């Protein structure tokens, strides 16, 4: 097979040196501008008044710092051929499982909001291993699923090992307890499994089992059943568990179509819990109105569109699954966050990617987008595959997949 017949651009795509998806970068940039702005607006009151922070810009400065680190991470990972991760997926998984154990088991984990989600390592900023677990699990599953091929449809070779792996990670995250992250992880993994070609009967059975497990989880833990009760009737305990539901509804509802204006949120004055983190979308709704909330939803819809476009044009299974996993994760996390803030689903703590304040979440999201952008540089899509079947083009995808397969597995 000769590359002489291919255009230069096409050659670059083939070698993973095509231009990254600038549209996707643009979407992220707009989200960042909005996010940094809203984090400042939502946090300056708390930052100003609390003796813990001393400065109005406490959260703004930190958020911008994390954005800077994140952008650099994204730009670096964008250059790294995503195939290189394949050999690190198993050790990465081992490390993340250990870290999750450490968070739960040791005193290194410092508790916030009644849960053990952070891990402090010496002078480094505290990290949230559950955030990193999202990316590591997607990398691992993409690699694993891409190698299964048709065996994926097999119960003992496909569905059961997948369920065990998923159960292990979500279980550890749940034990922190971090239901929001566990839910996002499970949803992303299920998407991957589905896209990869899961057996439909197994998939539906697994879905039912998962739903039952979710219901059990909600009912067994007192604070979760309280949250569900509050979701169904927030007025029952308006100053307790119903508080944040009522307050975020007030924030969104009083925003109207055009909003109260940038910086004019009232609810951020201690009414709305976690205004600059999990509930930032409510502040957007209050200050920028329906126009603002629709813009955010539109931006995430575009992000999903560009992400899945890269997915469908990925040259091999691993790339495709990796892109699908990352896109599904970011999309579902965003939609879940919005669903929680609009009290469409019961409350759980979850951040709005690229918008909410938060170091670990920001860094991991950027890393994921960096990887996704790298996949976008390898675009060939379905056309060459069709051509391959017509015999006009070499099976680029299968070649790469096979070579990757051979180089590692054999």
């Amino acid at each position: 097979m000769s590359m002489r017949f291919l255009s230069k651009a096409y050659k670059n795509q083939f070698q993973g040196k095509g231009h990254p998806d600038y549209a996707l970068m643009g979407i992220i940039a707009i989200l960042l501008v909005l996010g940094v702005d809203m984090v400042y607006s939502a946090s300056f009151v708390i930052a100003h008044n609390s003796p813990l922070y001393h400065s109005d810009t406490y959260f703004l400065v930190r958020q911008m710092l994390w954005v800077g680190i994140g952008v650099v991470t994204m730009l670096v990972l964008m250059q790294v051929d995503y195939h290189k991760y394949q050999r690190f997926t198993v050790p990465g998984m081992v490390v993340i499982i250990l870290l999750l154990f450490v968070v739960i088991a040791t005193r290194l984990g410092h508790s916030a909001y009644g849960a053990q989600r952070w891990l402090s390592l010496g002078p480094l900023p505290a990290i949230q291993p559950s955030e990193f677990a999202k990316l590591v699990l997607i990398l691992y599953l993409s690699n694993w699923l891409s190698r299964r091929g048709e065996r994926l449809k097999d119960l003992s070779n496909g569905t059961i090992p997948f369920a065990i792996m998923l159960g292990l990670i979500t279980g550890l995250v749940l034990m922190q307890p971090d239901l929001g992250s566990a839910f996002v992880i499970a949803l992303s993994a299920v998407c991957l499994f589905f896209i990869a070609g899961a057996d439909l009967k197994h998939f539906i059975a697994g879905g039912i089992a998962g739903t039952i497990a979710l219901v059990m989880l909600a009912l067994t833990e007192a604070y979760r059943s309280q949250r569900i009760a509050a979701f169904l009737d927030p007025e029952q305990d308006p100053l307790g568990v119903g508080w944040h539901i009522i307050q975020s509804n007030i924030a969104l509802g009083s925003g109207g179509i055009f909003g109260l204006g940038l910086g004019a949120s009232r609810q951020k004055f201690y009414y709305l819990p976690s205004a600059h983190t999990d509930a930032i979308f409510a502040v957007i709704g209050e200050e920028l109105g329906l126009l603002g909330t629709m813009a955010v939803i539109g931006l995430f819809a575009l992000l999903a569109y560009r992400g899945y476009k890269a997915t469908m044009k990925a040259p091999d299974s691993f790339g495709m699954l990796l892109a699908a996993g990352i896109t599904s994760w970011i999309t579902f996390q965003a939609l879940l966050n919005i669903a929680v803030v609009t009290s469409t689903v019961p409350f759980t703590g979850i951040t709005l990617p690229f918008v909410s304040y938060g170091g670990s979440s920001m860094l991991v999201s950027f890393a994921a987008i960096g990887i996704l952008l790298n996949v976008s540089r390898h675009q060939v899509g379905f056309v060459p595959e069709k051509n391959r079947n017509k015999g006009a083009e070499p099976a680029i995808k299968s070649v790469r997949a096979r070579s990757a397969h051979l180089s590692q597995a054999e």
Partner: protein
Amino acid sequence: MHELEERRWRFYTLFTVIAVFILILIFRLFYLQVIQNSYYSSLAKKEHWREETIPAQRGTIYDTNGHVLATSVGFESLYAITNQIARPEKLARALSPVLGESETEIAAKLATKQNAPTLVKAYLPEEQADAVRKLNLWDVYFQPEFKRMYPEGSIAAQVLGIVGLESQGLTGIEARYNDVLAGKPGSLLAERDATDDEIALSASTYSQPHNGGSITLTIDRYIQKLVEQELEKAVGQYKAAGGTIVVMEPRTGAILAMANRPTIDFNDPNLFAASRTPMYKNAAVSDAWEPGSIFKIITMAAGLDTKAVTPDTSFNNTGSFAYGGGVVRNVITRLGPETMTQTLQRSSNIGAAFASTRMGADAFYRYVEAFGFGQPTGIELQGESPGILRTNKTGNWYPFDLATNAFGQGISVTPIQMVTAVSAAINGGILMKPYVVKEVVTEKERREYHPTVIRQVISPQTSKTLGGMLVSVVELVEGGQVRLAKVPGYHVGGKTGTAEIPTKEGYGSSATIASFVGFGPADDPRFVMLVKIDRPEASPWGETVASPVFRAIAEQLFTYMKVPPARAVTQNQGG
């Protein structure tokens, strides 16, 4: 191809799920932000806009010479929303040295887990409040509050009255003049954050508080303290249930002192307990009692003024006096001729009945009513009783009542009525309206109260004659025994009373109310004083219980009022 088709199908399924999810969220947001917009806007307004009351400073009550009796001082009280405190123990540790309370004490207050303001410490002095502020604590806040202060202590407690926890007058002058004293609280309607601090995003509406006006009483703190002190002593000494002393300026009707026992302590932490409420009332105006012999002053005034009797009118005391189906007897009877002066000196019931029956019911009751009995005096104090007076023109009256009323039985009077009537009897015959408020000053006006004449009850001549008779009562020396009300160096007049307390069964019980009403100096009376001691156990008699109290107070009053001693009176005690 099959693989590819399946993959496409799976992608489209995923896209559909995401699209449906997005659509649901769009509908939800449209519902919240467009359809429910006005509902949530009003909810937000209700939540954010809160009105804060800015308390007005309650006015001051002064004594007649401008000394402060009650005033309100601004303090800052420390509060916390206890269910929002992150680390109560840490907070308690920080506050302990500044507030001067133990850590456990403070921690107990912080541990209540209330979602409402909880008082940590009330009325912090300025330095202490500043010290707390310096700690830069996040969980506690200050609330400006006024505290009622009483620089002279709890004197004239029932006259001043009690101020409730919401700075509202509950009794006494504080209640009667609450409109003047309370002022008008201001308000601040502002947008607030969840911790109740103002948000500077929109203009707030402020209305300034108007501080309360001040009141100057006719009470003289020196005389009041003297009276309180002597009353306290007497109640203890004679093991009495209580007592009342009222001092009035007879020319004007101004109250110079008014004290009651038992009394309240303004700083009593249990001031609002049910056990204290019976002591709130001002017995000097609210409690009517059968005055007994002191009422003979009134009978004699009426008799002299109608000319039914003169001081020298004499009758033959036979030991009993039958009238209207009843018989009047004396406690100790001296048989034989008795003049009206001797009637007063000996406190003869028969003599008093002789006088009242001689003038007749119409005349007697006309005078009794003219002296103000049977109706409230109209003094600016709360809960005044009219007393009980039955006359030949009202129901439930028997002719024998004319005889018994003459020496103060079958009639109930209040201390303020008695003092007012005796003032009229000895001041030249003019009934003055008693008053205790001299001046009211508000933001708008300054109102002065002047003595008010109600009526001429008896002629000046009668008044003078009666005064002389009453001086002779005090100055009478019998068997070498000087009357206990006698103030050395001065002429004073007066009359004792020992009233049996009527029960359902009649006058059988041994409990009495001992009293003395007197005035001085005799030639130009500066004060009329009623001393009333309830249920003294050590001795039942007005002469032994009430007279010494009168003398002790009168003696010091003369000095305080700079009344020169009467000429030659020291040698001529018999008068």
